[in-house]
């Protein structure tokens, strides 16, 4: 029943950063466009780097004609994959509904492309959580 503040790990932990920014705006902007949440929190360099990495992954996935997941009836796992892909935010909806992007299951790079597209969504989901932590002062 030791108090959490008295453990060695807690003593060595760096001091918590100061909470900053509006949580809703930060999280929404982080989800809508990769890196935008970090830019909103004045982490310009990191925000730009994250934008480039996530969008690059998305572009490579599209060039390889990978599958941009959508829910398929009778295949419950596609819901999870769709949720993961939607993590990339606005670009997902732009590709699916604006550009009517369709993967090509016959394409040589289909599996690779799917991995890149899904990874882009998952990376941006992690960015949303990172922005959440920064706003709450748990991370610098």
């Amino acid at each position: 029943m030791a108090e959490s503040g008295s453990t060695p790990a807690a003593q060595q932990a760096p001091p918590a950063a100061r909470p900053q920014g509006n949580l809703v705006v930060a999280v929404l902007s982080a989800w809508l466009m990769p890196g935008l949440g970090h830019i909103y929190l004045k982490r310009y360099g990191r925000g730009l780097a994250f934008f480039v990495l996530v969008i690059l992954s998305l572009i490579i996935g599209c060039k390889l004609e990978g599958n941009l997941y959508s829910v398929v009836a009778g295949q419950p796992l596609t819901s999870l994959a769709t949720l993961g892909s939607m993590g990339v935010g606005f670009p997902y909806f732009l590709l699916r509904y604006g550009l009517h992007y369709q993967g090509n299951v016959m394409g040589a790079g289909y599996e690779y492309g799917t991995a890149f597209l899904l990874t882009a969504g998952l990376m941006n989901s992690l960015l949303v959580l990172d922005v959440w932590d920064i706003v709450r002062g748990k991370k610098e």
Partner: protein
Amino acid sequence: MLSHFLLMVTYALIVSLFFTLLWRRDRREQVKLFLQIFLGMVGGGLLVAWLMYPFPSGPPAPIP
């Protein structure tokens, strides 16, 4: 031309850069983590490929 190796290296590069920037702030720590993740992914991929080499490739997978 589609190169499996090039795609693997590209994927490893993007992912390792992403996690390096996400998890580390200090430059030395960033370089260390980047090398760990990148070499782990590429080396691990090559190791698995090498272990699978004796197995026959079999017929191509059916198209769903």
